[in-house]
Every structure is written in C-alpha cells, then in structure tokens.
C-alpha cells in the first residue's frame, strides 16, 4: 500500500448506512480475514436478508469476493487463510459444532465466476449434489429434482433432448445456468454468486440476470459483480467495498442515485475502479 492508498484506507472509518436488517438470514459481525500475514478484510459487518439480492461492488482487490467466500466457508480450502469474527446462519454459528462445512455448503450454495461444470453428463452434473447428500431415495425422485432444477435455471428446454451429453459441450452461458441448476438442486437457502456473468456475452448475461430476479422469490442471494449496471439491475441492496473495508451499505436505489460516502460516489461515477 503506498501513501495515498494508506491515507484513503485510514479515512474509511466504519460503514455508512445500516448494515443490519430485520430477520436476517445470515449475520456477519466484525469479520477479519487474513491471507498469511496480509489482512484482506477489516472488521466488516453485514446482514444478508431473505428474498433479496444484495450486490457487492468495489474496485479489484477490495475484498468483495473474499467476503463472499466467508459466507459458506469456502476460504477454508485455502490453507493460509484465517477468518475471525461472528458469523451465523439463522442464528446458528457458522463455525459451531452443528454446522460443519458439508452442511453449511448444502444450505449456502455457490456459483463461480467461470462456469465449472464437472466432466460428466448434464444430468449427472445436476444430480451430483442430491446424490452426495442423499436427497433422493429412488431414480424417479432424482429425475424430478434434476428436471425441476434445470427448469428453475431456465435451461431445461434447451437441453431436455440431450441430458446425457457432457456438461462441457454446452455454450458458456448454458454452462453457467447448468452450474446454477446444480446449486439449486441441493435446495439451498442462500445462493452466493461470484461474478457469475463476467465470462459471458450480453445475451447470456441478460438471461442469468432474469434468472437471478426469479430466484429471489425463494432464496437469499448475494452477488459479487464488477458491473455497476448489473448491480443496479438485479439487486435490492448494495454494499460498496474498498481496500478490504465495507464503506457503505444501503438500498440499491440510494447507493446509485445519492451515495453518502465520497468514495462510493467516486466509484459509481466512474472516477476509479
């Protein structure tokens, strides 16, 4: 961090706006994340609400993806990473004994930046989660889950004739919707999306955005995005991260029309980022 960065960093004092909501689905308080010696997230608190899309925006390296990965403890897969703070799902501690990573990730699903279908058929890709969690007791139930998930992901009509084809044979946008279907198939309560459209063309992006809006009816959704237009289109609440701190949280409308913090305004108006 050079001097000007240091100044900016020191001037971010707490978060502007209300980080809490009534009846939060997930509540994170005073979260710090370290990669080895380096601290990536500084004292961030944020609630995730039901039936709502919260967008996390900010310049590259601001910690928004790292924060997202705290929500389902994906950071555990990185050996040097250390997370401290209080995190809960429906009031249950994420690091408590009753909620190990397997259960947590079944309830908090994740869609990644680059579509990452397994080297399996379309059917097996979607059936993967239900199979490992034993959600279906017979083939008919499994079929039902797979078809239902593909339908919810808006992919079923395109692939219903070739469920045996490898997942990797689909186009990029279809692959990403397959990954969303795969996530839905384990009936999660929260869906995390880490820049789900950054590898996709505008038409595929539009389809995913529509899908996110529909999924909001049933899930709590947190999405990290580089595109401010996307954040404005799909989210109800927006969180602006900068240099590992949460600068401002508020309704999307408020953040994009009348941001309270100078840094947020600079970012929204395109002065950096």
């Amino acid at each position: 961090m050079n001097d000007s960065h240091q100044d900016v960093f020191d001037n971010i004092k707490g978060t502007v706006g209300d980080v809490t909501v009534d009846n939060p689905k997930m509540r994170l308080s005073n979260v710090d994340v370290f990669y080895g010696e380096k601290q990536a997230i500084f004292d961030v608190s944020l609630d995730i609400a039901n039936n709502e899309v919260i967008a996390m925006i900010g310049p590259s390296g601001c910690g928004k993806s790292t924060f997202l990965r705290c929500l389902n403890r994906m950071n555990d897969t990185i050996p040097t990473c250390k997370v401290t703070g209080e995190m809960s799902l429906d009031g249950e501690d994420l690091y408590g004994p009753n909620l190990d990573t397997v259960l947590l990730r079944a309830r908090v699903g994740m869609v990644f930046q680059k579509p990452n279908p397994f080297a399996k058929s379309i059917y097996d890709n979607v059936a993967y989660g239900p199979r490992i969690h034993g959600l279906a007791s017979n083939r008919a139930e499994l079929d039902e889950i797979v078809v239902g998930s593909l339908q919810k992901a808006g992919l079923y009509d395109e692939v219903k004739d070739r469920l045996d084809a490898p997942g990797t044979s689909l186009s990029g946008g279809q692959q990403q919707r397959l990954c969303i279907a795969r996530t839905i198939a384990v009936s999660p309560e929260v869906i995390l999306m880490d820049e789900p459209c950054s590898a996709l063309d505008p038409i595929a992006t539009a389809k995913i955005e529509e899908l996110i809006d529909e999924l909001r009816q049933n899930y709590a959704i947190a999405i990290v995005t580089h595109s401010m237009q996307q954040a404005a289109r799909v989210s109800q609440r927006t969180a602006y991260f900068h240099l590992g701190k949460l600068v401002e949280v508020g309704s999307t409308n408020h953040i994009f029309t009348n941001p309270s913090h100078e840094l947020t305004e600079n970012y929204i108006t395109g002065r950096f980022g």
Partner: protein
Amino acid sequence: MSTTSLLLLALCLAFVSFIFGRQKAYAVARAHGGTRALHSLPGHYGLMVGLWCALPALAIIIGWKIFEGPIVSSLLDSSIPQAIHDKGDKAVELYKNEINNLAASGKISEESDAAKVGAANRLNSVRSYSAIALMIFSLAVAVIGAALAYRKIKTDTQARPIVEGIVRFFLVASASIAILTTVGILFSVLFESARFFQQVSIVEFVTGTKWSPQTAIRADQAGSSGSFGAIPLFLGTLLISLIAMLVAVPFGLMSAIYLAEYASPRTRAIVKPLLEILAGIPTVVYGFFAALTVAPLIRKLGESIGLSVSSESALAAGMVMGIMIIPFVSSLSDDVITAVPQAMRDGSSGLGATKSETVRKVVFPAALPGIVGGVLLAASRAIGETMIVVMAAGLAANLTINPLEAVTTVTVQIVTLLTGDQEFDSAKTLAAFALGLMLFITTLILNVIALHVVRKYREQYD
C-alpha cells in the same frame, strides 16, 4: 586432408560467408535508408549466404564419399591378374584385402608380390588424387555458392522464406529419424522372423503350448528336435505383468491422490522425489531384492500355511516389478490430477461435498483419461522388463497361472536364446526374433490404445 578437417573447413567458410552476407545486407540497407527497406532481416541474408555455401559443399562431400569406395574398388579390379579371377570371387576378395592392407600399412616386405605392391601403390595414389580433387571441388563449390548468393543480396531478395524453408526441412528430417528407426527395427526383426517361420510353422509358434528351444546342432547328435510353442511364454509374461499391475496401480494411484490432493506442499516436495528414486534404481538391484529377499519370504510364508511355493516364483517377480513401476503410475497420475482445474474442486466443495467425495466423484473421473494413459505406459514397461524375471522367476517355461510356480517371460527367453555362442541360422536363435516381433506388436497395440484413450478424452473439462 582428412574428411573431418574438410568438413570443418567448409563450416568455417560457411560462417565467414554468413558474416559477409550480413555485412552486405547492412550495407544495402544503409544505402536504401535503414533495415526497413530490406525484405528480410540482415541475419536472414547472412544465413542464406552461409547455407548456399555449406549445403552444396556438404552434399558433394557426402556423395563423393559414398561413390568413392565402389569406383576405387572397380579400378582395383583391373589390376588383378586373370589367374586370380579364375579362382572365383572369394579369392578376388582375399587378393583385394591384401592389397588394401598393403596400401594402408605401407609395409612392403621382400616377400611381397611385385604385382601386389604395384597395385597398392596405384591404390594409394588414386586415393590421394581423389582426396585432393574432392577438396578442391567441394571448396570451389562452397565459394561459388556463397558468391552467387552474396551477389543476389538486394532489397527485394526474399531471404526469409528460403531460410524458413531450410529450417523446416531440418525439423522434418529430425522427426523422420525416430520414425525411420522404428521402421528399420521392425524390418530387421521381420526378416529374421520370416527366416524362423520357414523352419517352424507360424501356427505351431502362436498356438503351441510347449516351449523347449534346444535343437541338436549336428544331425547325428542326440537331442530333442525342439518345440516352439510361445503360449507358455506369453502366459508367463501376462501373469507377471498382471501381478505387477495389481501392485502398481492401486498403490501408485493412491499415493498420487495423496500427493496431489492431501499432502502439504512441504510433504509433497519431500515425498515426490523420494518416490521417483524408485524409478532410478537399476533393475538388476530390484532383481537381487526379488531373488534374495522377497522370494524366500514368500516361500516361508507359503510353507507356513501349507502351500508349496517354488523358490523362484511369478509372485515374487511380479510384486517387485510392481513396486518398480509405482513411480510411473504415481508420477503421471499426479501430473494429470494436479492439472484438473481448481474450479472443479471448488464447484464440488461448494455443493457440500467432502474432500474424498470430491476426489472420487469429480477429480478422479476428470483425470481418468490421463491416468489410463499412465497405467498403459506402465504396463508396456512391465511387459518389456527382463532382469527381475531372470533373477526371480526362473527360466522354466511352465504353462501355469499359479503365481507360486516358476514361470518365464518372452524377454527372458530372448535373452537366453541370444546369449553365448550361437549359430545364426538355427531355429533356436531365430526364435528370439519371432518372439521379439510378437512382443513388439503387443506393446505397439498397447501404446496405440494408450495414445488413443489419452487423445480422445483429453481436455474434456476445458
């Protein structure tokens, strides 16, 4: 002047012409306002001149050396007395050899035949004239070639395509060498095998169940006529390779998964090289280990539970061979497992899969094509292995699938057939080539399958 120094001289000339060519290209460029005015880079012009200097001269030197021998030899023919010619070809050869020896040694004793001495002297003078002529001719061609190319350097001379074309030619030539060698090996084995199959029917060889290659050298000698049924050998090879793969595949694969997925970078940095040391141990040492440690151990164990185990058993050889090829399986599998994108592991653990579920259901299937390729390569290695079998499994060609008995393999028989003083026209010796041919075909098929599998499924996850 010897050929070596002539070659060196030609290369020096080529280098000098490269320098001159480049110099001239720079000069031409300066006259036309910078190297941008040239069609190609100055280095290309230099290379063009150098190659024009070296290649024709090299072609002449090589061609000369090829044709010099036969021409000199036919000149020599004319100086051989008719009396020798009448005695037949062998006498002529002998006479020529004597002349050659005389010419080479320069020792002319008093008993030497005057005619021979004269011929030897003529031979020497022809050779020295030839050497001088070659030197003058090739160097002249080199200089003329360089000069012609040098004169051609203008702004629009297309030197780059010429140089690129020649580079391409050398690359193609290098690639052909490996292929031509394979073809050459195949043919040399094929012709000897054909000679074998003239004496022993191919049906008997492929379907016979008795292997006893001892044949009597003289007709009046007591001894068996020899039987050449290759099935016991191939069954023995199959048995030992199978035992080896049963050891190598599970252990190799599991250590690969441990190294790629579970081990910390520190552990990996220590364990992986240690495992690869296994591949560096000479097979003879494995042979000692199998014959002196493993085989007696198996025998004792077997006898303690009431089994009869021969002191040289397929099991001992196969197990030790399996340990030897563990690094092939583990190292190749480790590479392909590591190459599976992290995104796929994240996708799986993001759905709540445990580490072992991720490995078994996502990483392993994605890496499977590469793993199969590695296993098949290890199998070819096991089939071709000789030393451990010689020392630990014996030489008896038993037709058995009992791993506790002594068996022998194709490669071991080839070695025993070809070592020692042998006649090269007996069926016994020629059988080695037929065995080699069949082994070659077997491993070739395995390799083709391996390549096909790897190619078909490669990059499926990208």
